């Protein structure tokens, strides 16, 4: 099994937490992993991405070649579009529909979503609304991860275990909130496809 995943968003939206959860699950399964992150200046409200590669075999490059990504997982709809050159012909885009507007020339939300709809295989969801309904808007990133879970090639319970390990120190409430977010996202993805 081999998955090349681009995680996208804006600095501070929590793409690294998603990467950590997938990474922990993959390592638990004995898989190889490489995950290139963005630190430094771009973290200040700029566009950020992480190249996450998991495979049963050793991985050469830290960066995913263009046209080879199996998945683009984005916490922001315009950011999902930025990485289309990396998406493979049969790849999936899983994205939040709620824009993060911190530039004056951000395009109309509807035109952005119309572009996402043109992508052959996509899952769109309002992760922030779902997170808010669960009680904390901060778990929107984990909702998105849940929506991506059917396409990861990793058993769902392994992701749950990774969440328990990652948030265990913060107490049961935080663990349960994140598990609920993961399940809510997964449920929507199944309903949509």
């Amino acid at each position, binding site marked *: 099994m081999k998955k090349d995943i681009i995680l996208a968003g*804006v*600095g501070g939206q929590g793409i690294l937490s998603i990467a950590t959860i997938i*990474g*922990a699950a993959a*390592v638990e399964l004995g898989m*190889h*992993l*490489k*995950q*290139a*992150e*963005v*630190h*430094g*200046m*771009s*973290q*200040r*409200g*700029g*566009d950020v991405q992480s190249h996450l590669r998991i495979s049963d075999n050793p*991985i*050469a*490059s*830290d*960066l*995913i*070649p*263009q*046209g*080879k*990504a199996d998945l683009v997982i984005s916490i922001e709809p*315009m*950011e999902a*579009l*930025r990485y*289309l*050159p*990396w*998406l*493979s*012909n049969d*790849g999936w885009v899983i994205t939040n529909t709620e824009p993060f507007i*911190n*530039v*004056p*020339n*951000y*395009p109309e939300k509807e*035109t*952005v979503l119309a*572009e996402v709809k043109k*992508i052959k295989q996509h899952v769109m969801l309002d992760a922030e609304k779902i997170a808010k309904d669960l009680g904390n808007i901060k778990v929107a990133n984990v909702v998105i991860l849940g929506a991506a879970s059917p396409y990861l090639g990793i058993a769902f319970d392994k992701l749950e275990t990774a969440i328990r390990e990652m948030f265990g120190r913060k107490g049961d409430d935080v663990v349960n909130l994140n598990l609920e977010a993961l399940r809510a996202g997964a449920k929507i993805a199944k309903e949509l496809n």
Partner: protein
Amino acid sequence: MKKALLLGDEAIAQAALDAGISGVYAYPGTPSTEIATYIQNSQQAKDGKVHSIWSANEKTAMETAIGMSYAGKRALCCMKHVGLNVAMDPFVNSAITGANGGLVYLIADDPSMHSSQDEQDSRALAKFAFIPCFEPSNQQEAYDMMFDAFDLSEKMQIPVMMRITTRLAHSRAGVTRCEPRKQNDVKLHPNPKQFILLPAIARKQYNELLEKQPALETASENSKYNVYTDGSDRSLGIIACGLAYNYLMENYQDEPCKHPILKVSQYPLPRKAIEKITKECKEILVIEDGYPVYEEFLKGYLNQGPAVKGRLDGTLPRVGELNPNIVAKALGMPATRGEDVPALVVSRPPSLCKGCPHIDTYKALNEVMEERGKGKVFADIGCYTLGALPPYNAIYACVDMGASITMAKGASDAGSLPAVAVIGDSTFTHSGMTGLLDCVIEKTNVTIIIVDNSTTGMTGGQISHAYGRLEHICEGLGVEKEHIRIVTPLPKNHAEIVNILKEEIAYQGVSVVIPRRECIQTIGRSKTYN
């Protein structure tokens, strides 16, 4: 031992601890910061009483590491590439004195300038200083190499560079650890005279350094990190340096490469392997993630040897970070690019955080400077450099750490007034203090705004050496007390900040204005080492 999932920086930090360092010395700088941070948070480092507190700048960091080496213990000194410019004096001269305890300089380059003002290649400086250089191709190799780097440093009595790039520094992979090695005891050098660089001794030591070079070349030839893989198609031979090797191999996942490949991860170049590949192959492709340092070296000025391809002849782009696609193109492989980015996607540059104190300072400064004309504000390296971007457009120049104060002095000397500097608290103690002393000595007409957010913000909120002593430093350097003005940058204090700036700009001498409010990212974090 179970694999740990580590950033390249973290793998290097763990390796240095396991190789028995007694201290890490560093100033924060992307992409090297996480090395020292990891050691600061490590229980193993605490148990071993490994020094890990930040230094004031890269020069003090390197000199302290050198002192630890002279005392017989192992020391790691880390910095970003431009930090090495600051530390150039101890860097070059410690090669002349030689090392005692293992001494490794970890330099993190930033091709494509993700978070830097240039993309200089530190391998060229290792060559310049006549010291060996390791360039890992992945996280595990970075871990393993650190042991060899320290061993080579002690065996050859020479500082050793390990050069990485942003991509390796900030990429995570599984790393298997080795058994930790004990720290060295204090052990003075039997011939300490070599550490005294009086001209007569320096001349002798310089010759000794040159005499070490053949042995360093032999070490490279025998290095397990320099690997020759033969191939049947000798129309092309490929020399892949450091991380570039991964981008090369990414393109041969389905079928093996038919061309001979020489992977280079230890310098000076392994001469015998270079001679073999250039003799056997019709053309040579050199792939380096940085400057075409060794491509140019192999090509030579007269370019009369075998054809050497790479960044200089357009086979690879002349500038910027490499990736698998760029290397594929150089090998004549078809492009794999997916769909184009839709036209409506706009760029999203970094910006000051919502609620950042620098916003309030720039709003007031822009109002004051409005009637005083453009081109009067010199800024520095840090989050506040973002004041160069809209909506502020507040800055005329930004060059290097500490330069705001001295550039403003130069402008003032030239008669371009008012002359205003904007510098952060940590950048000020890094290398702004000496420039301020120059201003004080001459009573230069400058207004220096030290934006004090009580942290080293851009690199993630490390402790600032200026914390709790900023105005005392200014006073100690001779700034008049009544012209050191402290204000809280908040929207409600806008009129007060504007007034203070106007008054101090009107003053025909050295003024320091300190807008002081903590970085909103670090609120609640401890600001001292206790």
